[in-house]
């Protein structure tokens, strides 16, 4: 029986268990969308390809499955670039399928042609240009395998229109041919033993945990390790939720906008156990003064991450879950009373705080109210900027895959579409998008997608009328010269905008209205709700480590 390329692709996607696909058609993928017309895959039509990319990404972050997005050639494909890059920086498994002009026209400056394998090379884990439909089954299998194993990442499949239309007779060989791809599995037993010895000998250890532990599904093992050894845990932005922030051992987030006590603990520890984290510059600050008196253990699935930014004493390459499982029985129970007491003292002396009261809506208070209104059970999806940091600081995350944010690339416009993708993947959970007037407008068109599918997502818009994080830097480091960061005079009426899309809009201008608005929003089902919180325009995110400073040199903003 003959099958066309498009059908082979759809069959291969079904074989991979794909249930949702986010995309937008165009000339080069009409034949593919024709195959999707009756396929048992839920295809979600977005209003912009970037939205499709972030939705697939949010879906992947919320579920752990591979997200799939489709765009047409040329502009459709280039519109995916930011989304692919976002997924790449945060190691999110994504398969992006882009249409391409017919093979004989490639390189011809044909209509809607862009060299996607060339453009996507530095922002994908791997990519393919399919030249023959007989290769398609194998390529799709390889793409899903590469995207989801080792250190996950996006894989792009560029599919010329004539390959989609190509008719293939009979069976095709879909066996993977990846002789050079061997993702790391378990860690080296000798290194694990060394790590255990270092942990047992340590008086002041800290676990520094990143998104890799979420990817690995190793949250349980991490919790056991921390509790067995009484080791305090700080997480990166990407690691939020992997260890319950309500636990006394939690130090919350570290780094530029981390807690004082997390940064002090890292600065004073004698052993730093990094698991699934990559010593990003937003974490380390001035690298020479990062964890200056500590031995460093680095557990990571990607050997190129180890020793990239800091010297590592005990590298352990492999899957976090497998390594922590091996490590657990070797680690002794330990009280570490003195160290924990010191940390408790820092927590008492330097809690996260902001100036309460006043007649302005404080953004931090909105997040605290949101935590209460959702009982800490929501999937919080953020955009990028001040609101992202407040959402990280003032909501307490207790489970992995409940805080979704563009950490590495810092993509404004990520929040709404990623929230939509997360809601498709987890219909059982309340999804809340925490965003800002700057970020939301970068992908506002996806309101239509959310309304169309009657998604009960809640959008908490912290509307301060500025590109707030840039304004904060201008205030602190550029003598309050607010060059091109003021948005309020051009902002739309977001409540009316929500209503224009068919969503519900709620305006909040007074502090005492916050709780009520959230309660009303949470009660509304089967419709997106946008809460437009007009917040204090010049509120800053603190603590803050100025760029290039050591992480114990924080501005508190409370002086």
């Amino acid at each position, binding site marked *: 029986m003959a099958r066309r390329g498009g059908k082979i692709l759809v069959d291969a996607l079904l074989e991979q268990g794909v249930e949702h696909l986010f995309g937008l058609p165009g000339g080069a993928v009409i034949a593919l969308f024709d195959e999707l017309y009756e396929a048992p895959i839920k295809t979600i039509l977005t209003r912009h390809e970037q939205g499709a990319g972030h939705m697939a990404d949010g879906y992947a972050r919320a579920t752990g499955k591979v997200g799939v997005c489709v765009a047409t050639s040329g502009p459709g494909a280039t519109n995916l670039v930011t989304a692919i890059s976002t997924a790449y920086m945060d190691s999110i498994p994504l398969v992006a399928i882009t249409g391409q002009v017919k093979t004989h026209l490639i390189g011809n400056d044909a209509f809607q042609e862009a060299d996607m394998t060339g453009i996507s090379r530095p922002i994908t884990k791997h990519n393919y240009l399919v030249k023959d439909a007989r290769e398609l089954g194998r390529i799709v299998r390889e793409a899903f395998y590469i995207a989801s194993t080792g250190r996950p990442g996006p894989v792009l499949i560029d599919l010329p229109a004539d390959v989609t239309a190509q008719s293939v007779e009979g069976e095709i060989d879909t066996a993977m041919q990846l002789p050079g791809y061997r993702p790391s599995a378990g860690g080296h037993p000798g290194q694990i033993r060394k790590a255990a010895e270092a942990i047992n000998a340590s008086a002041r250890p800290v676990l520094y945990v990143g998104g890799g532990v979420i990817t690995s599904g190793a949250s349980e093992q991490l919790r056991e390790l921390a509790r067995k050894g009484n080791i305090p845990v700080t997480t990166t932005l990407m690691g939020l939720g992997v260890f319950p922030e309500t636990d006394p051992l939690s130090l919350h987030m570290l780094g530029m906008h981390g807690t004082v006590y997390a940064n002090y603990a890292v600065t004073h520890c004698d052993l730093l156990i990094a698991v699934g984290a990559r010593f990003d510059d937003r974490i380390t600050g001035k690298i020479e003064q990062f964890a200056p008196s500590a031995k460093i253990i680095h557990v990571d699935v*990607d050997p190129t991450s180890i020793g990239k930014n800091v010297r590592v004493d005990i590298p352990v390459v492999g899957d976090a879950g497998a390594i922590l499982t091996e490590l657990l029985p070797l680690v002794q129970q330990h009280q570490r009373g003195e160290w924990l007491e010191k940390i408790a003292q820092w927590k008492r002396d330097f809690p996260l705080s902001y100036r309460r009261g006043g007649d302005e809506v404080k953004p931090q208070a909105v997040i605290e109210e949101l935590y209460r209104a959702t009982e800490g059970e929501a999937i919080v999806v953020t955009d990028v900027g001040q609101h992202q940091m407040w959402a990280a600081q003032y909501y307490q995350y207790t489970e992995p895959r409940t805080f979704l944010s563009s950490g590495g690339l810092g993509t404004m416009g990520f929040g709404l579409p990623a929230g939509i993708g997360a809601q498709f993947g987890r219909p059982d959970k309340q999804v809340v998008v925490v965003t800002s007037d700057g970020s939301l407008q970068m992908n506002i068109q996806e309101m239509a997608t959310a309304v169309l599918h009657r998604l009960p997502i809640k959008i908490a818009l912290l509307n301060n009328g500025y590109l707030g994080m840039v304004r904060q830097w201008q205030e602190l480091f550029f003598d309050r010269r607010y060059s091109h960061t003021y948005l309020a005079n051009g902002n739309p009426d977001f409540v009316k905008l929500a209503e224009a899309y068919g969503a519900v809009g709620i305006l909040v201008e007074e502090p005492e209205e916050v709780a009520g608005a959230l309660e009303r929003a949470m009660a509304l089902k089967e419709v997106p709700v946008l809460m437009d919180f007009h917040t204090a325009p010049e509120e800053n995110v603190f603590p803050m480590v100025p760029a290039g400073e050591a992480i114990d040199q924080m501005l508190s903003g409370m002086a």
Partner: protein
Amino acid sequence: MRKQLAKVIDVVKVQDFSGTAYVERDLALIRVRAPVEKRGEVLELVAIFRGRVVDVGKTDLMIEISGAEDKLEAFLRLLSPYGVREMARTGRIALTRAARD
């Protein structure tokens, strides 16, 4: 560097030759200006460097030369006053020597 190379999906194996015995070559085809009055000098250089003349024109010669990268660089430095008109080069290629036992 080694780890970065190994990370590329299409790379099957990465071997680091530093610290091992290996043979290294760089191959170049060079078209150099060599009018009759200068031809003798150029041919002498070619002979010293164990190159080969592979094409002869009225005013120029094409030379094939291979060797370690620094030898080629030295040869090119000496040729350049005559005028190198065209060149194609492989860059460094290498294989380890057989184990000696």
